[in-house]
């Protein structure tokens, strides 16, 4: 049984436009899957749908975690099951520091694990873990005291997304263009951080436009995503082919004869 199983998934926006048009995909722990596809092809929509964004409707298909459908679960319950989404555009929460937000999030997940009983992390332990993770991801110390994503640069936001992942220890991490906006050093550090977490406890689904992050993360599978569907699957070599040739080769035949 796969950790995550996406079956014939169709996702529409509130006005009924179908964005994701039949996706099948399985991700296990110990695996890194890359999704590459042109702008507007529906990658973020897929990621949002996995996480349970209320603005997107699943019109057909299913999403299973450990063999159980999560379609009825709210975003927080999905997070508690071990799903994590690093946002392409993380939102700011003024007035809430990164540290206090992280502590609340950790405690929410711990509470769910303890069957609804409060089981807050001890503050010294939290401090220790936070310090260690910040050091590893080279996030400057003072970021912990800043308001979450408030006035952060693009790259800072992305790093803090990965910091959240490191501390929340999800089982399946979906990274939506986490590499965009990162400088070369940051890219290496962040990719290293992800690679380190992938193992028997975690699998990852990495959405990206670029070969570069994949050089570091080394995906096991690459999926080419065009127009709401996976049109080709393969190994890392597929990413190289894409980088060389673009999406042209993968664009599906026009349906119904329209160009």
């Amino acid at each position, binding site marked *: 049984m796969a950790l995550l199983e996406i079956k014939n998934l169709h996702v529409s926006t509130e006005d009924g436009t179908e964005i994701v048009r039949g996706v099948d995909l399985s991700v296990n722990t110990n695996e890194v899957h890359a999704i590459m596809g042109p702008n507007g092809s529906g990658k973020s929509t897929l990621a949002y749908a996995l996480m349970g964004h209320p603005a997107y409707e699943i019109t057909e298909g299913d999403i299973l975690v450990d063999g159980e459908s999560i379609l009825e679960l709210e975003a*927080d319950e999905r997070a508690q099951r071990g799903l*994590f989404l690093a946002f392409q555009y993380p939102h700011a929460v003024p007035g809430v520091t990164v540290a206090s937000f992280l502590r609340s999030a950790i405690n929410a997940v711990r509470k769910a694990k303890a069957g609804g009983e409060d089981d807050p992390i001890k503050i010294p332990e939290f401090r220790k873990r936070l310090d260690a993770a910040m050091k590893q991801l080279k996030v400057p110390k003072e970021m912990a005291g800043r308001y979450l994503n408030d006035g952060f640069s693009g790259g800072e936001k992305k790093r803090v997304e990965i910091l959240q992942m490191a501390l929340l220890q999800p089982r399946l991490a979906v990274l939506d263009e986490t590499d965009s906006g990162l400088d070369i050093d940051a890219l290496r550090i962040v990719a290293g951080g992800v690679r380190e977490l992938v193992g028997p406890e975690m699998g990852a689904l990495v959405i990206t436009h670029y070969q570069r992050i994949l050089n570091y993360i080394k995906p096991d599978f690459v999926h080419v995503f065009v127009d709401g569907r996976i049109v080709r699957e393969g190994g890392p070599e597929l990413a190289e082919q894409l980088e060389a040739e673009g999406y042209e080769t993968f664009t599906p035949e026009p349906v119904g004869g329209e160009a």
Partner: protein
Amino acid sequence: MATTETQVVGEIGNEYRYGFHDPEDYFFKSQRGLTREVVAAISEHKDEPQWMRDFRLKSLEYFEARPMPEWGGDLSGIDFDNIYYYIKPTETQAKSWEDLPPDIKQTWDRLGIPEAERKFLAGVGAQYESEVVYHKLQAELEEKGVLFLDMDSGLREHEDLVRQYFGTIIPQNDNKFAALNSAVWSGGSFIYVPPGVSIEMPLQAYFRINAENMGQFERTLIIVDEGAYVHYVEGCTAPIYTTDSLHSAVVEIIVKPGARCRYTTIQNWSSNVYNLVTKRAVAYENATMEWVDGNLGSKQTMKYPAIWLMGEGAHGEVLSIAFAGEGQHQDAGGKAVHVAPNTSSVITSKSISKNGGRSSYRGLLEVAKGATGARSKVVCDALILDEESRTDTYPYIRIDENDVDIGHEATVSKIGEEQLFYLMSRGLSEAEAAAMIVSGFVEPITKELPLEYAVEMNRLIQLQMEGSVG
């Protein structure tokens, strides 16, 4: 009918924790309603000097002559004839918590006051109904000449000082409710800080209404002498009854040259208390006055802490948080009046409305002719949590001087679906996520509070938020 705590808590959906009440076993309770006889009896009972008795009776005339205010909130529910204007719970004031009657002591224990005193307060006053039942000031402050007494003792022991200032900042006919307070006032704090004395830890007064239909009219006078500093904090709670109570205080503050006073209120009245308070401070040369005002409870609050900047270089700040839940209207704000040159003021107001609650910002900014170089900034941010709730802004500005720098900003926002989703995707429930956004929203004000109060404020907001979403 006596209401048990469980009933009380059940009625309010876990929101109000201080809804318990004690059995009434009072030393003295006036009849319902307001007459010359009641006013005279209060004065008699307190054995006051003639001038105070006359002041009270004159104030009663003003109160009766004035119409109810037509602006602000809906005050039609107040039945002046049904209110107890004076209740004296104990015969004497206690110097230690142990000396209080067990019921009353227990109340303060449950509110955590004795513990707070031990931990971080320089002095405490605890008012129960009309009288301050407990009072204590650290000995070393007493030695430095600091006075921290209940207002009645202040009048008895320092009559000259009281007579010099009482009713000078807020005249007895200032408004209907100031007149009412002037007629029937009882309790409150009297503070004098001698020149150059800086009191590091806050002085706190705690106000508790216990009886149904009680009217609490405390009167506070604070004089901060040259170069001195004090931080005074007040907290308020009451039980939940089916009929309403009235809290109508008057607070007068004098901040002398170079002195600084900070006055923090965490008002958490139950949702059946009319809270109509007049607060005004005057700040002289290079003095600083700061009002930090948290209004979380009550049915109707009308309160606009004011600062008159009388001396050159004086600075005033009002930081106000209002949280209006179901059936609540918080009409709050601040006033700054620039009389002297080079004075500055900042008014920051943050309001939250949910479950049909209404919060209004009402502010006055006035710059008199000759107050050259005055600077003022007013920022009002409102957060609305649902479609039924409401917020409005009434900024009044009168400027009679050209050489001034005035700014006014107002925003109204809602909790965004995207922001909620982002937080929920990290495992927080919708209510937790909303509470987090709200506490972030008020953070610019809570960060100004001493840690203990910031924690308390956040906890109260959390309680207000519980079950409010989804």
